[in-house]
């Protein structure tokens, strides 16, 4: 039986029946108060990048635009994550209320849920909830509408600016930043785009106040987080845990006793070897040192039967396919990394070639246009550096 170091929480998935009251109460408050609550709560985006949600709403509120938009990012394309699907199935109203309050704060009247193409089966149910939600909005006299936009299956379309491009009917290619979405997002108008889970959390903050949320987690990583646990674990699934947890404790709770590595944050995240479990915290503790790892929620456990070469090979194949292809470092760099580790493995290139590839990965990190190309180095370098022998022999 797995140990229980970590407290299981039930904030997100708890079905609350007071949505109407919470919404009515919250949108009567001043924008400033709502933003303050979010800032005090310490909520950071759960889509991966961890941008402070209160600040995002504040900036979009201050931007000028004829129209403003609120978009819920439900593209959930990272391999090994399925938490947003679960949230939208179980507690969609929380997400919608989060969107409505955001609309109030920034002055938007139109919202969208960008739903991953593969989640089409959620559509009917979601549209029914949205109908109810519109009735509720009419009742309290708040002018806001939400539409579902069905994505077409490219991983890159989860990146916010590629998502806007795709909604505008263009090819899903990330844009240059700045400008950021809060200044120029969907249709070049100020836009707040938040992950499904982020929006669901705002609901809890509105209901229970910012302090209750802040009491969970540790400094810089507040609240709870929904994790998708997979790989070599006897208990795969979705778990809501306190943020800022130690990886050691996590592995004790969820591993099969033989974990040699955990991939935190999916293909674009970091691989932590066993010897570093004890030093690693899951969250945003200060600067990213490799000892504090953010994650969109994917936790993949590998035991000693796994070849880390194969793991990396899989990730690289994924990136070679899913790169949008527009920028050089990512389009060509991913191919070079993949072919490079193959060549070393086959003995066609010397093991020192891995050093050249590590430099290449680092250059990709600092030059690629969007998060996809920038983060290939995360898994590449952490796997190659920690499991070098497995790459060569």
């Amino acid at each position: 039986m797995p140990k229980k170091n970590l407290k299981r929480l039930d904030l997100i998935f708890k079905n609350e029946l007071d949505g109407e009251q919470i919404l009515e109460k919250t949108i009567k408050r001043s924008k400033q108060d709502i933003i303050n609550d979010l800032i005090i709560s310490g909520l950071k985006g759960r889509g991966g990048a961890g941008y402070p949600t209160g600040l995002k709403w504040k900036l979009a509120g201050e931007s000028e635009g004829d129209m403003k938009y609120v978009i819920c990012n439900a593209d959930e394309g990272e391999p090994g994550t399925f938490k947003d699907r679960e949230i939208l199935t179980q507690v969609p109203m929380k997400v919608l209320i989060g969107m409505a309050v955001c609309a109030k704060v920034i002055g938007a009247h139109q919202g969208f849920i960008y739903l991953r193409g593969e989640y089409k089966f959620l559509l009917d149910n979601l549209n029914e909830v949205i109908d109810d939600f519109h009735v509720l909005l009419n009742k309290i006299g708040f002018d806001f509408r939400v539409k579902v936009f069905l994505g077409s299956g490219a991983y890159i379309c989860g990146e916010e600016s590629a998502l806007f491009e795709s909604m505008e009917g263009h090819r899903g290619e990330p844009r240059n930043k700045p400008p950021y979405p809060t200044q120029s997002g969907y249709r070049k108008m100020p836009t707040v785009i938040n992950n499904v889970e982020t929006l669901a959390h705002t609901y809890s903050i509105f209901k229970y106040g910012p302090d209750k949320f802040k009491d969970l987690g540790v400094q810089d990583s507040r609240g709870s987080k929904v994790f998708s646990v997979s790989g070599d674990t006897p208990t795969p699934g979705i778990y809501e845990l306190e943020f800022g947890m130690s990886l050691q404790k996590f592995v004790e709770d969820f591993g099969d006793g033989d974990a040699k590595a955990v991939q935190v944050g999916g293909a674009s995240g970091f691989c932590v070897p066993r010897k570093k479990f004890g030093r690693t915290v899951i969250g945003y503790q200060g600067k990213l040192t490799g000892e504090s790892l953010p994650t969109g929620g994917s936790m993949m456990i590998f035991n000693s039967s796994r070849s880390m070469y194969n793991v990396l090979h899989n990730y690289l194949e994924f990136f070679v396919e899913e790169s949008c292809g527009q920028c050089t470092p990512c389009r060509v760099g991913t191919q070079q990394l993949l072919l490079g580790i193959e060549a070393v493995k086959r003995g066609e290139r010397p093991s020192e070639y891995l050093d050249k590839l590590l430099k290449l990965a680092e250059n990709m990190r600092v030059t690629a246009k969007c998060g996809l190309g920038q983060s290939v180095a995360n898994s590449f370098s952490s796997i190659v550096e920690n499991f070098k022998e497995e790459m060569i022999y």
Partner: protein
Amino acid sequence: MSKINLVIDHIQVSVESGSTILEAAKKMNIKIPTLCHHEDLCVAGNCRVCMVEQVGSDRLLPSCATPAAEGMEILTNSLKVRNARKSVIELLVSEHRAECTRCYKNGTCELQHLSSEYLIGEDSLIDLVPLKEFTIDYFSPSIIKDDSKCIRCQRCVRSCDQLQNIGALSVAYKGQKMKIASFFEKPMYEVVCTNCGQCVNRCPTGALIERNYIDEVWSAINDPQKHLVVQTAPAVRIALGEALGMEPGKIVTGKMVAALRRLGFDSVLDTDFSADLTIIEEGNELLQRLKGALVDKDPNVKLPMTTSCSPGWIKYIEHMYPQLLGNVSTAKSPQQMFGALAKTYYANKINVEPENMVSVSVMPCTAKKYEANRPEMHSSGYKDVDLVLTTRELARMIQQAGIDFLALENEEYDSIMGMSTGAAVIFGATGGVMEAALRTAYEVVTGRDVPFDGLNILPVRGMEEVKEASIKIENPLPAWAFLDGVELKTCVAHGLANAKKVMDRVVKGEANYHFIEIMACPGGCLGGGGQPIPTNKEIREKRTRAIYEEDAGKPIRKSHENPEVIKIYDEFLVKPLGHKSHELLHTSYTERNRY
């Protein structure tokens, strides 16, 4: 405009807000390498070669896509920057069929230049080329597209979309398969492509190039049986120098003529002559249409009439507005008028059998190559124009021949069909055809000079996207009495994106013009796809100035006063729109698919 202060390479600089880091650096004469950036196009930020370091920030910034911000501290040449740039260039080369010694762009290629600057060595990455399949499309008479040389900078895509609003090229697939493709990856000559060459002019590598006819021309020159006639378009003389080491904006007519003789052309003649002829034919056609509409009230007369001298525009309207083909003047382009006359009138004059004549043209344009190959362009009984060279190809031939262009003494065109007027010269600039036509038409109708100071019709000049001008006709000659008091309304557009704006209004019946000038390329022919690279706003402006300078300096500035034009009507054509004209100087158009 508010100012932004920043520090680049430890030096303080102040730039207008909205400037990019690249622009700020340029102001300080710091050159940052670029590939996807082009002044004429929107920012792409996809090649990642222009990266710079912002002190205190971890990731590098693309200088072409990042606005300068107050207090920024930028390093353009730190080790981190150099490593990153070199890495990007290495990656591009690894994906590239780099065989420079056999490449048309050898010596003028931006990727090659950067590889040499950054000393890209052999020890680098895995060669990806053998692992991929590439398409090379060499079926078009104008443009060759070789995907194995493409660095996916999307300059071509943006040129076709933003300047021309056509979208003949777009990005297809993602990841490693991402490529630049035409509609359904069909050959360029089968899709809605106007052959304008704006994409070719902006492609940094050998992936999009003009189909060159240099060797064919050399063979013809060296064939003792053949009499080589060459014509040079108005816009070539003000740009050729750039491709031979001169500053933009220099007029090199005399040197060009001298060089062409040295290359071995037997008759060096001027497209400007047939440009003057175009004005006579097209001007009379306009007056005839006005008469048909105003006097005869003939419902079949189509107005507004549009110009027809830009073959990119012709192909465009054939695809996009076939219902308006009746509005296009039936007058051929100056190139094709010239070709038809060369193998008839001129051949006869110099006693050469037309089958022994090879007619070559030098054009600022890649679409002219397609035009010369249209099946209907055989009015002389032969192919009217055999071979079309761009300005760039002529420059290359001059280099091949070892001619020191700068040292050449000026020479004059041969006569006949070598004389021209200022009106013909300005054909090379947007608004030029309109101005030339108005100078003539107004005088034909009233017997007086067009009422603009010094014949300079300023409202149709300049780089504004769509220009309008009107002239009220007063006290016409008796034959034109029906035009008394008529306000002649004209419109000028350059670049097909602007043409579309005008034509959409024509379709909706919202454009009450009589005459519309359209040039497919931005700035007119002086910005043509066959002109020296680079071509950009600043350079187009310099070329424009040179053109109007040449016009102002010409002794004759009205097409109908060209003595050789007067003579050809006396001796051969008899009268404008006459029987001979119809046979040789007018054409018809073909409806084409919209996709």
